């Protein structure tokens, strides 16, 4: 493997796979790095080897991932699975551990296609064993086909919650309830955006049919949920669901929570790229142009890591970034780039239409609404909301300061989980808006790297 490819791509999800395929077709040497053992990213996770791959539990969209993977495999790109990227520098060099061996890559350009992550939504008891994100629950299902024995409660909002509920239903799980955190009036809110979403009719239909499927089943749906509490001593025993004044306890062995997804900005923040607040999706995302170009010449972004538009849009965004890389590396002139870009951009516009509908129907919950003072915010260092508020009362005004004083976001996950909630609490307690307060900047290394790994890296081969 060359350590100086034209283009290195981090992330083998739909965006990265499509970008690699397109860039290789334009004559670039491409290295695709992903920490997973198989290509496909989150949505097509384990697409080529899931035990459920041939069944109706996981649907046609999921299996469409195989097409992307096959095109990629025959593209001539170099694929590195089990490749954890622990640092990306502003000059584009990459620190990565591949099959346990740390090394440096010095590509001419870098595309970050690191996808999204589930929004963290701390509430009392959320750290109990048995409570996990819906995405984690979905991965269990995709990887091993495993379904829990005990009753399952799903809680949250948005299309992915619906999808996971349906997938669990089809797999034969015992679903005790779906606690819906969506504020009432989703369809009224969505109506003005409906026409704009018709460009994605198949996806729209899929959503509607999942809703119908859930409705037809006898799964209990609790609308307008305003509070959650996980109850149990050593592990989850019940979920307390609140609707305004009314509270109810539902026995459960597993609680799957989902509050939408947000771009994974750990790397782009580490790189000190400019970010902007997206008020509708209530998240930060890197500032990038239509091709994913960022404030740093060598570095571009694509897919849900740049802007949440879903897996299909990520494919088009990946191709756009690849076309731009080819242009910047002088193998494609501007007019050609723009000609090939036009249909991709049009496709992205269609998905943006659908996203407007989804954003209106499922506004992301306010991270403050579900926690109380004793709720753990930082799992790694065991810091509660009260600890953070005490630091603010002591004079801290920004998350980096709170981090320094309390150790919140200083543990092994470096704030990937708690960063946004920390910023939210700081904004609230200091009378600032969410837009004024960025989560703290995570420090490298982003992935496991030992003293020995680093010592063994040849000094001469480092950038």
């Amino acid at each position, binding site marked *: 493997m060359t350590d100086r490819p034209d283009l290195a791509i981090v992330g083998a999800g739909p965006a990265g796979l499509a970008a690699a395929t397109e860039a290789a077709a334009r004559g670039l040497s491409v290295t695709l790095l992903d920490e997973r053992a198989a290509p496909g990213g989150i949505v097509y996770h384990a697409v080529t080897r899931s035990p459920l791959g041939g069944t109706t539990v996981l649907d046609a969209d999921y299996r469409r991932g195989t097409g992307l993977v096959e095109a990629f495999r025959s593209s001539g790109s170099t694929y590195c699975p089990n490749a954890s990227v622990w*640092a990306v520098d502003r000059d584009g060099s990459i620190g990565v551990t591949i099959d346990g061996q740390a090394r440096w890559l010095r590509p001419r350009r870098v595309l970050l296609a690191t996808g999204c992550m589930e929004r963290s939504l701390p509430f009392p008891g959320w750290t109990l064993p048995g409570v996990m994100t819906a995405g984690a629950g979905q991965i269990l299902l995709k990887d091993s086909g495993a379904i829990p024995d005990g009753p399952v409660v799903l809680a949250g909002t948005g299309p992915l919650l619906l999808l996971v509920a349906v997938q669990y239903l089809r797999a034969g799980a015992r679903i005790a309830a779906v606690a819906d955190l969506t504020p009432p009036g989703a369809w009224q809110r969505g109506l003005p955006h409906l026409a704009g979403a018709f460009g994605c009719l198949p996806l729209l239909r899929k959503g509607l049919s999942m809703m119908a499927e859930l409705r037809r089943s006898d799964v209990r749906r609790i609308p307008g949920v305003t509070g959650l509490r996980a109850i149990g001593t050593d592990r989850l025993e019940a979920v307390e669901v609140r609707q305004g004044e009314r509270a109810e306890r539902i026995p459960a062995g597993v609680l799957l929570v989902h509050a939408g997804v947000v771009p994974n900005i750990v790397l782009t923040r580490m790189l000190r790229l400019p970010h902007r607040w997206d008020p509708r999706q209530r998240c930060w995302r890197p500032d990038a142009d239509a091709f994913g170009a960022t404030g740093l010449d060598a570095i571009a972004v694509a897919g849900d890591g740049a802007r949440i538009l879903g897996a299909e849009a990520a494919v088009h965004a990946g191709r756009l970034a690849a076309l731009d890389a080819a242009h910047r590396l002088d193998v494609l002139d501007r007019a050609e780039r723009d000609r090939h870009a036009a249909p991709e951009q049009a496709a992205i516009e269609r998905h943006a239409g659908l996203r407007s509908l989804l954003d209106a129907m499922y506004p992301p919950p306010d991270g403050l609404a579900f926690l109380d003072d004793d709720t753990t915010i930082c799992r790694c260092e065991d810091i509660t909301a009260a600890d953070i508020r005490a630091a603010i009362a002591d004079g801290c005004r920004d998350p980096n300061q709170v981090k320094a004083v309390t150790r919140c976001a200083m543990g*092994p996950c470096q704030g990937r989980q708690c960063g946004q909630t920390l910023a939210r609490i700081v904004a609230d307690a200091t009378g600032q808006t969410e837009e004024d307060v960025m989560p703290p900047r995570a420090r*490298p*290394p982003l992935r496991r790297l030992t*003293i020995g790994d*680093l*010592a063994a890296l040849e*000094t001469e081969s*480092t*950038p």
Partner: protein
Amino acid sequence: MTEDVIIIGGGLHGSSTAYQLAARGRRPLVIERNHVARHASGASAGGVRRLRRHRAELPLAMESLALWRRLPELLGDDCGFSPCGHLLLAETEADLAWTVERAATTRSLGYDFEEPIDRAEVKRLVPSVSNAVVGGIIARDDGFGNPLVTTAAFRRRAESLGARYLERTEVLGIDRDGDGWTVATTAGRFSAPSLVNCAGGWGERIAAMLGETMPVRMKAATMTVTARVPRFLGPVIGHVRKKLSLKQMQNGTVVIGGGYEGRVDMEAGESDVLYAGLPGNMKPVIDAFPHLARVPIVRNWTGLEGNTPDAIPYIGPSPNDPTLVHSFGYSGHGFQLGPICGVIVADLVMQGATALPIGAFQPDRFATAGTLQWGAKEGTAVEEQKAV
């Protein structure tokens, strides 16, 4: 509005100065562009070390250590100070010879805190150290403190005694007029009869606003902290020859330094970790403690600090105007000196003189053309300062 004293920079030095002035009845105003301890004083490794210090700093370091021991009484906070000792490892005969020579030099200056020790004593103190180690030199009363807690404690006490802090406020320009100094900031203008420059790596810029030449180079030293490991280390470890600094914190994590440089972004006031040099930082760690090879790194970080040409700070009144006092450019080892330098600057502000010897730190020592020479490689200054 007229203040008593304006201090530019809310790091450890600005805060220690604010505390001393407030304790003597002044009401200083500290102006800090970011937040307190945002830069060197928050990123610091926290070493409280006299061992191998520059001879000009030794009298200050001795007095400072005495203050470190009294911080609970003075500030109501122990600042995480743990007098666990500092030990430099020796691996060769030449290393050993250096330890003996160094201790003799220090003794000739009147200090006996540096003690050459043999392999058995090193092994007794640090059983897990590699067998390649043949001895070392130790300062048993040195140790380390918690930089953030320390700066915060000085600030808190200063405020409770009447000091004021303006954070998120940047000094943009300074004028001298009949009554004193007028400082233009992003939050308006402030005047005072006395002015203190504790702006760390930006001290040169503040000096330039006043027409004074005080060169510093900004450097971004890199730190490494590991996952928690079972306790294996008492003293802070350095090396006679290699760039190495290593200590184990109460919570079990290991903090590694050594002065490896990251990228400085002056415009953004930020710095980045550059993994380029870090293999060289980790090798001596494993040489000394092979069992650390398998320990994961939790975090690397860098911090900005101003370094002077001779690697010792600027401390003293401006030669042009005694109501202006400079205290910056601590060149990577100003944490230990924090407590005493507040005393010195307060002396200079209030009495125009101090009992401690500060001749070597004269602010104008590089002001005349031809005097500037950066980091003479063989000079004792650099030689003595190389371990952080």
